[in-house]
């Protein structure tokens, strides 16, 4: 029997980016808030300190900051006809697991989605006609426009101290920035990071070919910055230990640096780490949630935390799992295409690229950050004419040096053996002289890519694991092939001593090598409760006091990384809760 705790105004399930932002906005509005986090609490001063934080084995391979699959993982299959098996180790993606969430170990690449990304279906129908969309491509519009979200994108930029250069300031295009981006109300909070040699080489050639390269926008502040909460970020050290590690310079934005110090000092806020929420208490008839049930992972004791408002702010999988394991919303069925929870699970096309070797160039690959690269968006989203191409979506194409950590970074020319004397000589010779053009591509929703509950495997609490049914489809292969041709054109024009083979997208999805922790969908936004889980304010159609944050609400995945829109949506939803919902609790949109 769960011990019943004192009711609070609002409870956050997960204390990463969105839980921290919502907790902050709601306490500011006068609510008492409890933040529950399954993982342990961390402090940058203790946990991200030199010298221990510069440890490739511990963070990149023993996955110190990553969720423990022994507690909870997902099962996987490529298609509904197969039976799924558990991901026994995380590989393809790496969810976070502690206060601060995945923002502890993210790289910091910080994007806004294109205005057309927010209207994916209607934009395509308008430009190419409804027939351009394949039958099984279940793309949808977001339920708000870029312009509506812009003030919230802006707010999140100022929380993070994002570095970069505007390419569209209030409608005015600016050369050197991303001329394809939607209009920004303000310049980036900090200037672009110092660019590395390989990025400059790429930009020069891309420009000569008529493209529009720009510096990667990054939540790696390029200099000390006082954010919108009055907290100070340090300047990036270009240490080359960013992604998968914490940041000892406090330059990489995350809840610990950008929000939590203010929250921790607020008497209206209580943080409870090692609290694993197993289900929501749901009154189906009243269409209300009444609180959450959690297990204290130190003791195994179960508690019920009643709350007036529940915010699901876990990772994508946590949000979906809690809905399915609490009986909230109808599970999606790919055969009938009825039901909503688990629908439109998407990923991101990655591991695409080509490695270039330059005998006469020196790159010092260990000096850098995920922001020290030049990017071009000429073949991203619908920035180019898809007429007659036979696919939709695109890729951002980029080159730079983020890190040279040598267990993982060991470029050798094609044909080199993987061990032995010849391998050693090649590794020693080329470590300083290689650069890789990479591509990240959109992944549009497909009817048979979805999440439901696994019939066999259970998590540590005895709940069914989520089952992922996922594979790449024809559209994805075509996007990758087309954009790779562009990358190869640039690669050849850069005139390298030699080039590796193009890394293409072939065969079934492989869950083993790391690709990206950009899983999306499953609790998507929409105008219609028959095809979405939350309305435009991220309020659940099936419980008006339940709000669902994060990338699980994205109807499909653009080429960009998702954290920028995740933060913008959190502020957008918080604003709706404070200015609309609290004044008149109930559904904010009537279906």
């Amino acid at each position, binding site marked *: 029997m769960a011990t019943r705790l004192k009711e609070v105004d609002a409870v956050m399930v997960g204390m990463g980016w969105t839980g921290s932002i919502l907790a902050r906005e709601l306490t500011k509005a006068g609510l008492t808030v409890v933040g529950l986090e399954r993982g342990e609490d961390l402090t940058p001063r203790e946990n991200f300190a030199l010298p221990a934080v510069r440890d490739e084995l511990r963070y990149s391979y023993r996955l110190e900051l990553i969720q423990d699959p022994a507690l909870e993982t997902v099962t996987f299959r490529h298609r509904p006809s197969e039976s799924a098996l558990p991901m026994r180790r995380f590989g393809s993606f790496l969810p976070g697991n502690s206060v601060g969430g995945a923002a502890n170990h993210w790289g910091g690449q910080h994007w806004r989605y294109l205005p057309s990304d927010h209207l994916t279906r209607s934009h395509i129908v308008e430009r190419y006609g409804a027939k351009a969309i394949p039958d099984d491509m279940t793309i949808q519009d977001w339920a708000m426009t870029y312009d509506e979200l812009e003030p919230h994108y802006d707010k999140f930029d100022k929380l993070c101290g994002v570095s970069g250069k505007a390419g569209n300031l209030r409608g005015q295009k600016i050369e050197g920035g991303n001329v394809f981006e939607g209009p920004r109300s303000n310049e980036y909070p900090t200037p672009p990071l110092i660019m590395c040699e390989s990025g400059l080489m790429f930009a020069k050639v891309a420009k000569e070919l008529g493209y529009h390269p720009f510096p990667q926008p990054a939540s790696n502040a390029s200099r000390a910055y006082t954010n919108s909460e009055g907290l100070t970020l340090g300047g*990036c050290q270009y240490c080359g230990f960013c992604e998968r590690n914490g940041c000892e310079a406090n330059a990489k934005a995350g809840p610990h640096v950008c929000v939590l110090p203010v929250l921790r000092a607020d008497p209206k806020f209580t943080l409870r780490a090692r609290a694993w929420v197993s289900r929501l208490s749901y009154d189906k008839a009243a269409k209300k949630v009444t609180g959450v049930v959690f297990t204290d992972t130190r003791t195994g004791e179960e508690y019920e935390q009643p709350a007036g408002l529940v915010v699901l702010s876990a990772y994508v999988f946590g949000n979906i799992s809690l809905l399915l394991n609490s009986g909230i919303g109808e599970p999606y069925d790919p055969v009938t295409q009825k039901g909503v929870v688990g629908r439109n699970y998407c990923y991101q096309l990655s591991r695409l690229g080509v490695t270039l070797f330059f005998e006469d160039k020196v790159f010092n690959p260990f000096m850098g950050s995920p922001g020290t690269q030049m990017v071009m968006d000429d073949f991203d989203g619908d920035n180019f004419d898809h007429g007659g191409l036979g696919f939709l979506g695109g890729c951002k194409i980029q080159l730079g040096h983020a890190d040279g950590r040598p267990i993982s970074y060991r470029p050798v020319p094609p044909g080199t053996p993987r061990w032995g004397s010849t391998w050693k000589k090649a590794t020693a010779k080329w470590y300083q002289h290689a650069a890789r053009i990479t591509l990240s591509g959109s992944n549009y929703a497909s009817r048979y890519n979805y999440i439901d509950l696994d019939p066999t495997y259970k998590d540590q609490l005895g709940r069914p694991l989520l089952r992922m049914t996922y594979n790449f489809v024809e559209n994805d292969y075509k996007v990758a092939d087309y954009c790779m041709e562009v990358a190869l054109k640039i690669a050849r024009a850069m005139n390298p001593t030699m080039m590796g083979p193009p890394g293409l997208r072939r065969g079934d999805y492989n869950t083993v090598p790391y690709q990206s922790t950009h899983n999306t969908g499953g609790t998507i936004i929409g105008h219609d409760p028959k095809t979405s889980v939350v309305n435009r304010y991220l309020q659940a159609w099936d419980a008006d006091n339940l709000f669902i944050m994060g990338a699980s609400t994205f109807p499909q995945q653009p080429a960009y990384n998702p954290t920028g829109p995740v933060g913008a949506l959190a502020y957008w939803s918080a604003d709706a809760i404070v200015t609309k919902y609290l004044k008149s609790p109930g559904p904010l949109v009537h279906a």
Partner: protein
Amino acid sequence: MTDKNAPDDNNPIARRNFLLGASTAVAAGLAPTAAAQAQQPAAAAAADAAGSEPATYLTLTQAEAAFFAAAVDTMIPADELTPSGSDCGIVTFIDRQLASAWGGGAKMYRNGPFRKAKPEYGYQLPLTPRQFFAVGIVATNAWTHKVYGKDFDRLAANEREDALKALEQGKAELGDFDAKPFFEALLHIAMEGFFADPIYGGNRNKVAWKMVGFPGLPAVYSHLIEQYRNKRYVVEPQSIADFS
């Protein structure tokens, strides 16, 4: 080539001496590359360092240690760039890793049922990394016995190379045990040991970092990144221990 001092199953002490350093191996005539290595001052220094450490292990048996030494010395042979894999401490690294929580299956989902699956589904065996390597070594030695009449670590250098290539290409018949994933795990842990921070026991004297020019710590480059564009940044690498 035989030698009455050569270590064998009935003479574990001799086998241990073999692991201690290049000189025993040369005397035993088992590691021709070690002779060349002894000519290299850096290699000799590393071998001394290796020799000063007792050949005791947290979890490896002597036979397993001999297997790993032979494997990592073939994958990472001594040459003008670095000492051999075992002289870089990689067997010590592997021993410590397999004795760690990771070796015991931490951060792995280990509930059944278990089933064979396509490689895209990832690791699906019930074995912990420690158990996986134990089983793989037994299976590999059984196979080399069939083909060459002896354990893997007793093979001549060229035979070891051939044996590793057969494992890599999945051509070695290990019965129920799949050779390819075993080889991949072996290669990966050898590379981890070679390139990880020396605090874990491998990469002794930061030889692998020196080999590629990785500076290690403190990795604070905000004042250097512009100045060293297209210009080699060379420093004596420093490790976590140097700042502790």
